[in-house]
C-alpha cells in the first residue's frame, strides 16, 4: 500500500511542478504557455552537443551534479525569459486565444529546431546515475531517484511559497496577477514582473527535465508533451492563477493516475486515461472556477 503512496507522490510531484510553471505565467499574463513542454525538452538537450548521429555526445552533461543542476535550471529560465522578450512581449494586449496559438507556434519552432539539430531518434544520457540504485523505506522498495524527486519537489514548493509570500518581488507578482494595471499604478514595473514569472517558470521546467531525464535516461524531443498535458489540466482544475491550487491538483492527478492503474481490472487498464479525463470533466462541471479559486480572476459583473 505504501508503495502506491510513494508512486503517486513521485508522479504527482512531476505534475505539480509542471502545473506551477504554467500557473505562474497565467497569473501575470493570462497566457496558457503551450511552449512550456518544449522548454523542458530543450533544457535536457542543452546538455548534449548538437549531432544527428545516434550516440549522444554528452557535453555539459558530465559536469558534477552541483554544477549540472544549476546549469539546467539556468538554461530553462534563460530560454523562458528569451521567449518572453522575443515573442510574448508583442502579445501583451492580444486575446487569450491568440496568445495561446502564439505559444503553440513557439513550441512548434523550438521542437523542430531541436529536431534539426538532434534528429528525431531519442538519445540516451546517463543523468546523475547515482540516483537510480534502489533504496528501502518502511517496506516499500523504490529507486533513490523517486525519493529524491519527492523531497526535492517539496523543498522547491516550500521555497517558492516563501519567496512568493515573503519577498517584495513575490508580493509584486501576486499583486500583478490579481490586478495588473493597478499594480503598475503603484510603480510595479510590468516587464520586470513578467520576466521574473517566466524565469521562475523556466527554472521549474528545468527541474522537471532533470527528474524526467534521470528517470527515463533518454533525451527525446516529445518528452515534455505528456507531462505538460496533465500539468495543464491540473492548472485549470486547481483554479487558474492560484498557485496552491495548481500544486494540489497536480498531486491529485498524479495520485488518480496511479490509483487507477492499480485498481482497475486488467482489461480496463488500457482505458485508464479515459477515466482520468472523465474525472477531469466531472470536477470542472461542479467547480468551473477550480478547487481553490484565485479571488481576482473571476470577472466582475
Amino acid at each position: 500500500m505504501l508503495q502506491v503512496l510513494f508512486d503517486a507522490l513521485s508522479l504527482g510531484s512531476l505534475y505539480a511542478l509542471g502545473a506551477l510553471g504554467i500557473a505562474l505565467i497565467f497569473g501575470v499574463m493570462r497566457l496558457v504557455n503551450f511552449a512550456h513542454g518544449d522548454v523542458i525538452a530543450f533544457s535536457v538537450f542543452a546538455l548534449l552537443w548538437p549531432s544527428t548521429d545516434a550516440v549522444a555526445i554528452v557535453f555539459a552533461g558530465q559536469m558534477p551534479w552541483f554544477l549540472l543542476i544549476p546549469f539546467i535550471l539556468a538554461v530553462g529560465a534563460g530560454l523562458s525569459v528569451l521567449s518572453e522578450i522575443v515573442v510574448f512581449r508583442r502579445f501583451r494586449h492580444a486575446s487569450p486565444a491568440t496568445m495561446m496559438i502564439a505559444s503553440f507556434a513557439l513550441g512548434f519552432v523550438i521542437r523542430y529546431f531541436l529536431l534539426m539539430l538532434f534528429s528525431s531518434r531519442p538519445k540516451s544520457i546517463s543523468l546523475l546515475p547515482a540516483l537510480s540504485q534502489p533504496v528501502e523505506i518502511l517496506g516499500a522498495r523504490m529507486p533513490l531517484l523517486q525519493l529524491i524527486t519527492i523531497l526535492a519537489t517539496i523543498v522547491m514548493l516550500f521555497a517558492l511559497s516563501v519567496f512568493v509570500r515573503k519577498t517584495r518581488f513575490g508580493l509584486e507578482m501576486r499583486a500583478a496577477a490579481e490586478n495588473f494595471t493597478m499594480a503598475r499604478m503603484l510603480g510595479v514595473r510590468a516587464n520586470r514582473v513578467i520576466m521574473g514569472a517566466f524565469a521562475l517558470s523556466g527554472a521549474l521546467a528545468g527541474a522537471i527535465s532533470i527528474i524526467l531525464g534521470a528517470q527515463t535516461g533518454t533525451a527525446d524531443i516529445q518528452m515534455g508533451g505528456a507531462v505538460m498535458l496533465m500539468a495543464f489540466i491540473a492548472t485549470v482544475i486547481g483554479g487558474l492563477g492560484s498557485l496552491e491550487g495548481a500544486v494540489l491538483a497536480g498531486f491529485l492527478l498524479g495520485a488518480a493516475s496511479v490509483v487507477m492503474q492499480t485498481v482497475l481490472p486488467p482489461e480496463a487498464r488500457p482505458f485508464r486515461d479515459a477515466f482520468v479525463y472523465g474525472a477531469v470533466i466531472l470536477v470542472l462541471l461542479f467547480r468551473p472556477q477550480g478547487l481553490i479559486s484565485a479571488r481576482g480572476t473571476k470577472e466582475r459583473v
Partner: protein
Amino acid sequence: MIRTRLLTGLSALALTLTPMTGAMAEDADGNIVVGFATAETGFMEAYDKPAQDAAMIRIDEINAAGGLLGKQIKVVNADTKTDRAEGAKAGLSVLDAGADMVVVSCDYDFGAPAALTAESSGKVSFFLCAESIKAGVQGVGPHSFSASVLAAVQGATMAQWAYEKKEARDFYRLLDTSYVYNKGVCDGFDWMLPTLADAKLAGEDVFKNDDASIAAQISRIKALPKEPDAIMLCTMMPGAVSAIKQIRAAGINSMILNGSSVDGSYWLSAVPDLSNFYVPVQGSVYGDDPNPDVIAFNALYKEKTGGDPATQYTYPGYVMIDVWAKAVERAGSIDADAVVGELEKMDGEPTLFGPRTFTPELHHQNKARYLIAEVKDGKPGIVDEWTISEPVPMDALLK
C-alpha cells in the same frame, strides 16, 4: 475456411483500389525507375534513412554489375515528411515520375498511403522494414511486400529460445499498448507459449510508451510469489529505455526479452551495466556477425554513410532490392504481375540476412533465422542463433 474468406476479402479489396490501372510505364529513356516515397524529415527520418542507404548500396552494386535486364536503375524520391496526407502525395509524385517500383516508409501507418497509391496504379510496392502483417497483401494489396520479418516471429523466437536454451519456465508479459508493433511481438509470444510444455504465464500487465513512471506495474511484478524467470517486454523506443531502467532500478533481475525495436548500443549508456537482456536481430551491428559478408556490408555502409548502422533495421533495405532484382531478372521484365509471380515462387531464397519466403497469401516472413543478441554488463554481443520450429500461422497473425 479461413483461406476462402481471406481470398474473397483480397479480391474485394483489390476491386476498390484499382479505379485506374496504370500502364506498364517504363521510363522514357529505357532504364528502370525505383521511387522512394520515404521520410526525409520529421520523426520517421531516423528510421527510414538507414534502410534507404542500405537499399542504395545494393542498387549501386547492381548498376556497377551492368544493371538490371541490361538497363541502369534510376532513382527518384519524394519526402513524406512523416505525415500521412503528405505520404499519399509523395507516392503520387514518384509514380508520375515513372517509378516501376515504389519503396515506402518503414512503419506501416506512415507507409500505407504511398503503398496504396502504388497499388492503385498497379505497381509493386515494398515497405522498407515494416513488421506488421498489414504491410503486404492484408493491408495494401496483391502487389505489396515487406522486406523485413513479422513482429510476431520475434516474440515467438524469444519465447522458444528462452524456454529451450535458458530453461525459462514462468514468463511475465508486459505490453506497451501505444503502438501496433508491440502488440505484434506479444501476439507471437502468446501463440508460442502454450506449445512449450509446462511453461506458464506468471502474470501480465500493460503500460503506455510515454508514461512518466511505470511504478504501479513494477510493484505488481514484485508482489508475485516468485520472481518470474523471464519478462516478455513488448515495447519500443523511447519508452523502452525508461521501462527497462525502472525494472532494473526496482531490483528485478529476471531475464528481459524484447523485440528487435531496442536493438543497437546507442541507448545502453542510459542503463549502466545492464545484464540478462536479450533481443533478436537479423544481423549484428556490433561487428561480431557469424557471416563475414555482413561484416563486409557494415564496412561498406560505414564508408558510404560515415557511420556504422545504428540498428538492424538497416538490413531489410538491402534485402528488399536484392530479392526484387532477382525477381525481375527471373521474370525477364518489370511488369508488376510477372515480378509478383516470381517473388511468390521464392521459398527459402538465400539472402545476406537469412532466407526469405513469399506466398500468394503472405508477402512477409512468418519464419526466419534470428541471431540472439545479449547485453551483458552494458556490452551487447551475439550469443546464439535460432529459428522457430514452425512458422507462425495466419490466424495468430490476424488476431
